[in-house]
């Protein structure tokens, strides 16, 4: 592997416009997916997607922050920044998962919860707080995977889980490095410096025992045929080549294997054991 990628470079990679989004992972990892909409209170937030999926005949509930790639998509997705109805939709689907004893898999990818007037009017703080409280004792296994940006309380509201994994170049932080620099040094231009200090990379967070697993971002190269017309194995190389929807297949395949391992491992735990372990996971921090 070449030179170490800096935290600030990872921030930029995590925010990259061509990086796969939740729906890309859902499509590649799971066998079936039925999207469900709405919070039953106010609306349907495009910044959060959720529904029921199947993986090797195991039904699971999936919830993810959803970013867009184009301006038009991002109008719908609000750049992956949920309003309160996004968190309420997530909680509704999580409660449904609990009822039907489906494990929950969350994909975390948000700059943060949206900071707008309507979000305040509809109780952004209450929506996040309630998710934190309810997830802490939800009676079904929860796995959260940070695939891009894990921004603040907006990310945490979908990461009160039994295990939290991060992709190698994902970040997870109390606030954006820009916000951090602005608050502590009154200068958002020092974001790069802030990123290095904040311990926001997957490796740092694994070392701090905030997360359980770092998933290396191996990427697939084009499958080539040799002279005899046989297909060669997909090559995997490590970064700095950026992960995109075109080269994510080998990563998705690896994630599928690991998710299945998680499901099999947690299937055997009693609810009591599960809730106790989840409580301890956060209690010790």
């Amino acid at each position, binding site marked *: 592997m070449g030179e170490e990628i800096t935290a600030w470079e990872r921030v930029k990679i995590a925010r990259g416009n061509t990086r796969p989004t939740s729906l890309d992972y859902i499509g590649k990892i799971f066998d079936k997916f039925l999207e469900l909409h709405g919070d039953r209170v106010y609306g349907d937030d495009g910044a959060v997607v959720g529904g029921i999926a199947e993986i090797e005949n195991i039904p699971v509930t999936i919830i993810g922050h959803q970013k867009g790639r184009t301006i038009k998509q991002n109008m719908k997705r609000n750049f992956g920044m949920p309003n309160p109805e996004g968190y309420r939709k997530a909680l509704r689907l999580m409660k449904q998962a609990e009822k039907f004893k489906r494990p929950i898999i969350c994909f975390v990818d948000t700059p943060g919860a949206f900071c707008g007037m309507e979000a305040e009017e509809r109780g952004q703080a209450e929506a996040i707080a309630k998710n934190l409280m309810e997830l802490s004792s939800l009676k079904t296994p929860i796995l959260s995977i940070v695939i891009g940006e894990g921004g603040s*309380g907006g990310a945490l509201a979908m990461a009160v889980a039994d295990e939290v994994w991060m992709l190698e170049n994902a970040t997870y932080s109390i606030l954006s490095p820009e916000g951090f620099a602005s608050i502590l040094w009154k200068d958002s231009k020092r974001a790069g410096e802030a990123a290095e200090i904040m311990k926001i990379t997957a490796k740092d967070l694994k070392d701090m025992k905030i997360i359980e697993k770092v998933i290396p971002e191996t990427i697939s190269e084009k499958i080539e045929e040799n002279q005899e017309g046989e297909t060669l194995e997909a090559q995997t190389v490590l970064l700095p080549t950026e992960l995109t929807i075109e080269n994510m297949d080998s990563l998705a395949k690896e994630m599928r294997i690991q998710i299945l391992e998680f499901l099999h491992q947690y299937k055997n735990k009693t609810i009591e054991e599960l809730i106790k372990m989840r409580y301890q996971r956060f209690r010790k921090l």
Partner: protein
Amino acid sequence: MPFTAKETKRNEKAKDIMNQQPQVPEGLFQKCSKCNEIIYTEDIIANYHICPNCNNYFRVSPRTRLSMVLDEGSFQEWDKDLPISDPLNFPGYITKLERLRAASNLDEAVITGEGKLNGISVAIGVMASDFLMGSMGEVVGEKLTRLIEGATKRRLPLIVFSCSGGARMQEGIVSLMQMAKTAGALKRHDEAGLLYISVLTDPTTGGVMASFAMLGDVILAEPGVLAGFAGPRVIEQTIGQKLPEGFQRSEFLLEHGFIDKIVKRSRMRAVLSFLVASCGEKKLEENEALFNEEDVD
């Protein structure tokens, strides 16, 4: 217009007199931050730390708050002086904390413990706005979690006066995790069938608002408190326009259905006593006298 020689002399003399005057003992008078009126400090104290001239609520220290709410002399502090946490090795952070600890007679941005409210035992936490803006790092989260767990174990009602700028930046992601930690502890307190009253005081924002402050069975607020997820400046930057007057204040929260009641400081003890008694074993009638017409909207 230039002063005449006579006027200049007179001014200088006046200045001299001012300088020679015995200094007013510090703290005898206070200037109201809102109406600028100079007020006799004793009058402020007698008026629950509210400006008698313009009704502005001054921020009060946790000790003062406890003395205004609890039965006299009933408070016993828990978990004082937990070790400092500095998970980011943030430059200058430990020095800053040590200086604050020495200067403020507080060990952190929250005081926790137990006390009595009209004879009923309660677990109570009060945040301090003047300790790094009441921000929540590991120690604040740990003290609150121990308070909540202690209340659950001993079957006590819980009261938390929030006052915070949110999660503490200097401790990074560890501060964020305190939101989940406190919320998880509250879930257990809730499942044990116990009462939690959250009281919002000025200001309560960010990670504190988005965790334990919004999770009360009953949520009260003092009048005019700024309380919200994002701070007004951040929202203005996001949407590129000025926020209307009163946005995110107690009255706004009440109107939008996010708090149960706005309670004047002078009535806080009575309202808390009523709630604690009504959710406990003590009969309601005994406490009805506490609940007078003033509290009826």
